[in-house]
């Protein structure tokens, strides 16, 4: 194997090895555990940076390992893979810093960070997967590694949430595996190929292909929280804030959405999928999810549950962009993968800060939180306005491209969905911002912790500030080279017009 072939494996190993070591560390070995965590995150970032530079200079990074006769474990760094792996790596570093601060003094940190590292290993594996079987393997590893994070607190509520999560994701995984196996028996091939590899099959296979598509989307739709497969997501909010941030911004939901992109573009091909007639139902499903998630969010008083339902809605923008089946909508869907990640992780970090510093979990308890924690709420405000789609924050760019894509393909009804969703987003985010900044704070917070002159610990404050700035920068400087938008344009160009 050449040096370039080792790079994807090293990216995987950079979180796997520290994770395995952390498992066996004693709880008191705080410094070593922190060092391993940060070392893994930084080394992964460096390797991903190297891959980005290499791909830009037309290097080819691919690892092939024999798995079974006729099936290989393939890791490949293409533009789409790099987009997701870069997002995951950057946000993992920030979430690691955040988690170190959040869980300071908590029990079972070795177990937590061990599974944390496994989770990121799996996510990166999902991103770099070069064929469907590799994708499925890492997808299932993601399920197994995130379950212990969901039930980390060990309470009855956490266990029940974990049960629900496991049931949903294992069933989803089984559907995905069934679809994969069926596809393999039909085509003998599972390699992700730009513009798909099933287009050569004749029309007599159309009904089977539709069923395979449905199985794959159902399996992926669980993690992507498409209605009615979203039920696990709000319940999983019982997990600690770093887990919620990871699940909702980096790992699980993004893996599902990313899988949908892979299936549509690199298994079926967008044009062939449109001919099969599966794109319209996917678009409708995504539209229903967008509106349903927003309506449910409107009536939640628990902050994390409101953000959870918001995630249900926002992740479906990605599916909608894919389903509209046009190059501009593709850009919108793919870039929203990054933008939603940045904005949503900011919001979850801030929710964690409020819980950890003031003991605030409910929106009705947030009166005057902005006066007590101005930087946290400033970051929250940026994230919230980004979710609404207010320019110049990143969410506006995604909605612009989705709207343009809808008009390009003659699907004007999507504009109404986007408008309705934006209206609902404003309805459930603006009151939070208003309460935090413009209402009188209570005489005493539910469970306030004193951090001296600082509003909260640096490890809790820095990550949301960074992600809020990134969300603002991704929108304001959307047309800079190497911005998420430029990268999404490259991917769309490749998917529609050739490599």
């Amino acid at each position, binding site marked *: 194997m050449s040096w370039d072939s080792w790079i994807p494996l090293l990216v995987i190993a950079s979180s796997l090895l520290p994770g395995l070591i952390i498992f066996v560390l004693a709880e008191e070995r705080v410094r070593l555990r922190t060092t391993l965590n940060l070392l893994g995150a930084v080394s992964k970032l460096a390797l991903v940076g190297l891959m980005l530079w290499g791909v830009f200079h037309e290097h080819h990074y691919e690892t092939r390992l024999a798995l079974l006769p006729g099936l290989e474990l393939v890791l490949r760094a293409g533009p789409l893979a790099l987009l997701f792996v870069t997002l995951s790596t950057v946000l993992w570093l920030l979430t690691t810093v955040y988690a170190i601060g959040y869980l300071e003094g908590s029990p079972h940190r070795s177990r937590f960070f061990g599974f944390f590292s496994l989770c990121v290993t799996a996510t990166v594996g999902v991103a770099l997967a070069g064929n469907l079987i590799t994708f499925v393997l890492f997808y299932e590893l993601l399920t197994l590694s995130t379950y212990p994070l969901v039930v980390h607190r060990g309470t009855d509520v956490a266990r029940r949430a974990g049960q629900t999560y496991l049931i949903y994701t294992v069933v989803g995984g089984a559907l995905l595996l069934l679809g994969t196996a069926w596809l393999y028996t039909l085509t003998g091939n599972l390699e992700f190929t730009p513009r798909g590899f099933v287009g050569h099959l004749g029309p007599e296979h159309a009904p089977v292909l539709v069923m395979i598509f449905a199985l794959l989307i159902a399996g992926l739709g669980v993690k992507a929280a498409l209605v009615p497969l979203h039920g696990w997501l709000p319940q999983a909010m019982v997990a600690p804030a770093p887990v919620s941030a990871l699940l909702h911004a980096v790992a699980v939901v993004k893996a599902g959405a990313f899988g949908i992109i892979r299936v549509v573009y690199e298994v079926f091909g967008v044009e062939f999928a449109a001919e099969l007639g599966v794109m319209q139902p996917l678009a409708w499903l995504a539209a229903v999810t967008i509106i349903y998630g927003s309506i449910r969010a409107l009536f939640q008083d628990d902050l994390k549950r409101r953000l959870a339902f918001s995630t249900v809605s926002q992740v479906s923008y990605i599916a909608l962009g894919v389903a509209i089946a046009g190059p501009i909508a593709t850009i919108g869907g793919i870039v929203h993968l990054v933008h939603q990640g940045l904005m949503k992780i900011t919001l979850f970090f801030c929710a964690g800060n409020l819980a950890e510093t003031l003991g605030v979990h409910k929106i009705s308890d947030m009166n005057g939180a902005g006066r007590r924690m101005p930087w946290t709420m400033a970051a929250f405000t940026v994230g919230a306005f980004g979710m609404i789609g207010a320019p110049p924050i990143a969410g506006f760019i995604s909605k612009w491209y989705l709207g343009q894509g809808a008009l390009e393909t003659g699907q004007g009804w999507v504009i109404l969905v986007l408008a309705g969703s934006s209206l609902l987003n404003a*309805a459930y985010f*603006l009151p939070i911002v208003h309460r935090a*900044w413009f209402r009188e704070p209570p005489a005493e917070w539910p469970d306030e912790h004193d951090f001296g002159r600082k509003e909260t610990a640096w490890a809790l404050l820095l990550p949301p500030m960074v992600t809020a700035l990134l969300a603002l920068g991704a929108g304001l400087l959307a047309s800079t080279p190497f911005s998420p938008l430029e990268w999404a344009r490259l991917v769309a160009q490749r998917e529609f017009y050739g490599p």
Partner: protein
Amino acid sequence: MSVVLSEGLMLAGIAWPLVVVGLLILPGLRSVGLALTPWAALPVLVLSTFPNSTLKLPDVMLGGILALDATGRVFLLLISILWLASGVLARARLLAAGSNVLAVMLLLAMSGSFGLVLAGDALLFFAAATVAGYSLYGALAYEADTQTRKAGRVLVVLLVFSDLLVFEVLLMLGQAAGTVDFVSLRHAFVNIENKNMVLGLLIVGFGTKIGMFGVHFWTPVVFARASAELRPAVVAFMFGAGVLGSWRLIPLGQIDAKEAAAILQWLAWVTLVYAGFAGMSQTCRRAILGYAAIALSSVWLVVLSACLQQPELWQTLAHPSAAVLIQSGAGLAAILLIDKINEGASSRTLSGLVSVLTWLVVLLLAIAPLGLVRVMDGQVLAIAILSAMAVIALLAGNSLFHGDLDPSAEPLERYAPSAAVSASRPVKDPYIALWVIAALIVVATLVAGYQFFHVTIGQAATGLFIVVVAITAAVLNARWRLLRLPVLAPGDVLLPITHGLVLARDGAGRLLARCEERWADITQALDRRIRPLMTRSDIAGMLESLFLRWSLALSLLLLLGLLVAWLAAS
């Protein structure tokens, strides 16, 4: 050299208020930031004297452009003056404030307002409008009293509605044009298929910000409740985000839309009649002025109507429209601040002078659209303009006989007219100065109108006559309550309609909660049946504790791999 300086000032004009925000929030530099805040509009005021220039920012958003052109210069001059006034008025309050929230909101709104004028493409304009609008809402919501915060909520709801409509239009025009600069968008507008729909959305979208009838609910409440430093800023926002936006996007002079023109003409009349009656029913001075602003929006509708009916009219309307803008914008802001000006009038002489000046402002505000009359002479639209002048004069004149809201008084019921209005009027001697300056204005405007706008003696005399009659009517009404209209609280009579939306939302929430309870009952019933079975065998507990071991997780993965291999092999 001047081009480079102009480009630098364009960037500085927008960025400088943001830099001051940075100074405010950095420890140790807050006092510097507070000292600079009132004067943060100066770079832009200087910029308005520079020649036209364009600055491309290819990395900003989707390819941003900053531009200073003839239209922008007029707005820049007006808006920078208004923001200077806001800054100076805010100075004492900002120094006394313990937190930076108000200062940050004002500076963000300022930056957004300048961005509105200097934006050369639609997305940058939209971004600036968003920043300006929501920051203004923030500044309103910052106030301690609940009624002012409610006024802010009315504003933000309408802002969201307006922004959605404008966004839809930008999507359609952007898709047709392929780019987002104003020139290309206007060209695309001319050739687009669903022109009337786009026009309708734009007019409602921008009309919301101007206070057009039907989407005007925010104007009276915000005018009534806004503190002194916010009033010029609100006027700046109305002109920048509303009037300028429509001029940037609607290709006046290039499209012919007679049906739309007829609708706008009727809308202008409805706006005038409504503003007149609703305004005369108010007891609060600034709420009446809010209706005067609504009446002013009918002038905007008339200009649009005229240009859509006869596109060639725009060439002749453009010049007097600029003068109308400056005069009406400055006049409206000045008359809103009369109470602050009068606070400083310690002697009877000064107080009398303030009264004279106040009436002068009323007259200038009312006759601002006079220059448009010449262009529309002989048309029905000229009568609409004259009627608008009369209604504005009536309302503005009537406002001088009423006090402002007593900030400490809260109304007992939501829309009761029992909201306390101060008995103290800002103009101490409203009757004395009226006839003195009426004569002065008749002479001065006849000369000025003839000299600068080539208004004939007949046209100017007609306009002045109507305005003087309207002011007389206002004075007489104030004295003897000639128009026995019902008295309304500060706010809008149509606001209860929007309250219905709140009731609908609450009703939907209760319905959803009931559905959730039923669903929870079903799942709990299932849980009660299944859980004892699970607990009895404790399979779940055992499995959970097992799953927490990574070794088992890896084993399961191995099993899965074997299953896949078996499936593949078979």
